């Protein structure tokens, strides 16, 4: 399974970003290969409008199965993500990426 995290940093100790559209990074964890990929989202952060859909388009290319974030996508990103069939889990705000992954595995996160 490929799991995407909204992140404020670039490694497992980084904090989960509560936002989706203007999250600084997306970290993509491939459970099969164990690889953690860093996707830079600064282009979306710099957008005046449409940051949500732009970030959704960005991660679509990587085809994640799950998205873990703090609060969740806003009204414009949400339909885009749903169309991609991604499962969204929230409640990870304030956790590190590692903690968020553990919480997800232990069913402690909220389904959006």
């Amino acid at each position, binding site marked *: 399974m490929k799991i995407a995290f909204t992140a404020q940093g670039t490694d497992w100790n980084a904090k989960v970003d*509560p*936002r989706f*559209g*203007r999250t600084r990074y997306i970290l993509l964890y491939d459970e099969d290969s164990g690889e953690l990929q860093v996707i830079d989202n600064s282009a979306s*952060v*710099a*957008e*005046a*409008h449409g*940051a*949500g859909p732009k970030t959704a388009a960005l991660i679509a290319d990587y085809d994640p199965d799950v998205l873990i974030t*703090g*609060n*969740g996508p*806003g*009204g*414009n990103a949400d339909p885009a993500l749903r169309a991609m069939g991604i499962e969204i889990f*929230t*409640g990870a*705000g304030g956790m590190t990426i590692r903690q968020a992954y553990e919480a997800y595995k232990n069913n402690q996160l*909220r389904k*959006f």
Partner: protein
Amino acid sequence: MREIVVISGKGGAGKTSISASFAYLSPPETVIADCDVDAADMHLLMKPRIVQQEDFYSSQEAVINPDLCTGCDLCYQVCRFDAISREDGIYSVIPLNCEGCAYCEKVCPVQAITMKARLDGQWFISETRLDKPMVHARLGIGTENSGKLVTLVKNVARKIAEKYNKDFIIVDGAPGVGCPVIASISGASFVVLVSEPTVSGIHDLKRVYDLVRRFGIPAGLIINKYDINPEKTQEIISFAQQNAIFLISQIPYDESFVQAQIRGLTMAEYGSRQIKKLLRQSWETVMELSE
């Protein structure tokens, strides 16, 4: 460190009056963030002394290079915003009309049009008369808000709070239910909904609460001007009960809210004894609920 965000849905319900009072009542280690950048008014009550000022670039505007322009008229034909002027055969962009959509740039056959970053406004870090720092912003004429500037203001406030070990960030949220509001509430520890007992007040309260609920952020409700319509107030109370929203307080209509604004004071300083007490209790409830 807790982030308390005050929103209302409908503008004019008393959001800033409440958040400013909270800013007054909160412990000294507090950062204030005014995220209502379209119509900022926290500064009227906080008397900020600007410590740091930064330019904010967000949108773009088109610029026509007259040396390359062949006068083909294509840009004029595609522009939806009446932003191309062709006086005496000279083509130029009217900056105030230009929305930055870049349609003209795309169609220009000789690449005479480029998109330039537009200075949309400034953001500031200031010291306030409450001895609590405030992050705020001012948008330029005709420029638009989006989640971008609100996010920036919130991120700066958070950086200050983390660096100086502050206990609270109090955010005066943006009105409405759009992206600026979403950006205001992202990352909040607790949301205070300020409502008024009117038809549009209740309608917008429900819409904005829907946002808060989906984001999974705990929320409390203050009914402001509750005595102007007891029936509508009861409607709001029922709505709160049905949705497990904690009713923090009900504040009566009082013209001294306006007098306080004129004098540049918060109601926690200027209000009647009853209102001061209600505000103090409200803040204490918020502190309890946000733990």
